[in-house]
């Protein structure tokens, strides 16, 4: 049952087009970043009331997407499901790239990017979540590198150890990312549930992205993957979504129930564009439709529906990140108890934020960098297995499906 891993040829026209597109995006992002350094951050549309914008949203989103490796390494390394071994390399490589993307997003968001490489490590502040998190991210990147090395050299024992470590570390990474907001002083941030719900949302988005990547890559490169594997991941995704919805429900019900938080909850749920994103983007498109598709017996076993559900989840979790970061800032804190500020030289009250072109270009630039690295890795590293099959001795229960429906023959 040895799996042969291969790299792709990488000489086809679509590959070249993809790589040049990613390179172009990276260059545009770099130019935008230099423009922002030169002019100051006001050109990005962030204001004193909303000092965090799309870059932080994207950073936490990317960190969440890296959880695909958490799932795969958990299945393969911790729970010993050998049939997920073919995806281990690609999952870990993607996780590393998305962590790099998260760090790049945070980096390009700083006011003084020149100081980011020295000061945070020299003047480490143990009480700050923003100080702990980069350490967690960099640690995870290093663990990913060791993990990849262990996978490439087929060191079985080391792989198991590193997979377990990465599994635990990834939990810390996603909880820590949630803690940036959850331990904050803003009314709509402050919540001990946020780290846990971040882990759930990260696992949902990571699994969804893994499904998209596996199905897409295997289809494009004419490789075989057993439907049972994808279907099982789809089930897992549905369970993750259930947990996400549960956490969202508890959090918002708590806010709506406690008298002092009720106005904030009303603002969050019915207060503007972010509410539309919450109800339609996150709950309807991101959670309920995918859950319906995945739990339904008929659609939950067809690859195209699972892929559609995954795509919706990837979009929905982006909305989730947005409705965590932005409304917490635009919501007006009550500075003087019982009083309303009617006139002020700065924007009191509800603040406005709109995503600007420059922020989008920057985010695309980060995506370009990791996309380029991904293409590079596909070409020069042996990431893809020749095929991914369910072995006879370790058949999961969900793999017992009617094989004639899926269109692709299962097993040899």
């Amino acid at each position, binding site marked *: 049952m040895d799996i042969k891993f291969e790299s792709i040829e990488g000489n086809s026209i679509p590959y070249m087009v993809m790589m040049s597109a990613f390179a172009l995006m990276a260059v545009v992002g770099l130019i935008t970043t230099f423009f922002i350094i030169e002019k100051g951050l*006001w050109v990005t549309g962030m204001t*004193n009331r909303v000092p965090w914008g799309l870059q932080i949203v994207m950073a936490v989103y990317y960190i969440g997407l890296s959880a695909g490796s958490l799932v795969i390494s958990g299945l393969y390394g911790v729970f010993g499901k050998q049939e997920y071994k073919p995806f281990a390399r690609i999952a870990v490589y993607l996780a590393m790239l998305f962590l790099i993307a998260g760090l790049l997003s945070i980096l390009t968001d700083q006011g003084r990017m020149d100081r980011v490489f020295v*000061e945070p490590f020299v*003047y480490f502040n143990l009480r*700050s979540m923003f100080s702990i998190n980069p350490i967690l991210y960099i640690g995870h990147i290093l663990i990913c590198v060791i993990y990849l090395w262990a996978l490439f050299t087929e060191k079985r024992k080391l792989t198991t150890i590193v997979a377990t470590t990465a599994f635990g570390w990834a939990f810390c990474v996603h909880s820590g990312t949630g803690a940036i907001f959850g331990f*904050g002083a803003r009314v709509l941030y402050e919540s001990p549930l946020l780290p846990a719900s971040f882990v759930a949302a990260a696992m949902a988005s990571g699994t969804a992205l893994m499904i998209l990547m596996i199905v897409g890559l295997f289809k494009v490169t004419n490789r075989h993957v057993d439907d049972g594997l994808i279907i099982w991941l789809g089930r897992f995704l549905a369970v993750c979504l259930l947990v996400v919805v549960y956490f969202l429900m508890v959090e918002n019900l708590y806010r709506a129930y406690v008298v002092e938080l009720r106005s904030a909850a009303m603002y969050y749920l019915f207060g503007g564009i972010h509410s539309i994103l919450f109800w339609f983007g996150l709950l309807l498109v991101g959670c309920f439709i995918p859950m319906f598709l995945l739990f339904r017996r008929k659609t939950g076993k067809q690859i195209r529906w699972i892929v559609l559900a995954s795509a919706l989840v990837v979009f929905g979790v982006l909305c989730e990140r947005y409705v965590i970061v932005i409304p917490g800032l635009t919501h007006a804190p009550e500075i003087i108890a019982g009083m309303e500020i009617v006139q002020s030289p700065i924007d009191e009250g509800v603040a406005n934020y709109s995503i600007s072109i420059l922020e989008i270009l920057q985010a695309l630039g980060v995506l370009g960098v990791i996309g380029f690295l991904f293409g590079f890795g596909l070409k020069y590293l042996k990431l893809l297995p020749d095929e991914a099959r369910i072995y006879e001795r370790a058949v999961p229960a969900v793999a017992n499906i009617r094989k004639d429906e899926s269109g692709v023959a299962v097993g040899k």
Partner: protein
Amino acid sequence: MERRDFIKIAGGTFLAGSACAYAFRFLTASNIDGLIVENLTTGRKYGMVIDLTKCIPGCTACVEACHNENNVIHSGDKRWDIHWLRKVTIENKLSPEVGKKEVLLLCNHCDKPPCAQVCPVQATYKRHDGIVIVDHHRCIGCRYCVIACPYNARMFNFKSEEEWHNKDHPKRSHGVAEACTLCAHRLDKDQPPACVEACRNVGTGAIVVGDLNDPRSEISKLVESRAVKRLKEDLGTDPKVHYIGL
């Protein structure tokens, strides 16, 4: 060269380089003779009392003095303008008929500052005399402190301004956070802060800054004898700006 050797050498060099970079700080941080960095414990705890009953409506002498002294420049855009000290008009939410009132809002110099707690580089910190201050030489501009401040008293330098009112005092480049420093540079020289001086010059004397630990100081007597209020005391940040007649 074998790949294994290459990785070993490259990894070793990387680790050694990082270690050197980290050690560099301690090697070069030798104290210059006679100038030993020490934590001075003067036992002072600066605080502020704002007597809103004396404050003249519409008067912004303190705000202007503050911004002239500290080179805080306004370009007129509400979104990015920095206000160390701002005068706002408030109205009771439940009973608007009581009327409007003007209040000064500024950094509260909390005894347990959330902004200092979240700063990833310890650029924001509380001085030994209780003043919460930003080290602009160290700030990386992550804006976490702006978010953590419950009083909206922190601002971020989104733009850098060319204007320079008070050339004896530095201005700030774009990309760092800032807030009221209680005119620490003046207090260190036993001068009153700019806002206090301006308020005195107007003839009001509504703002008092002094040592809260000294029972004989004017501010301690005010805090003792008058009904003072602080903002958001329930948060437990223990702010040191007191209001009379809020």
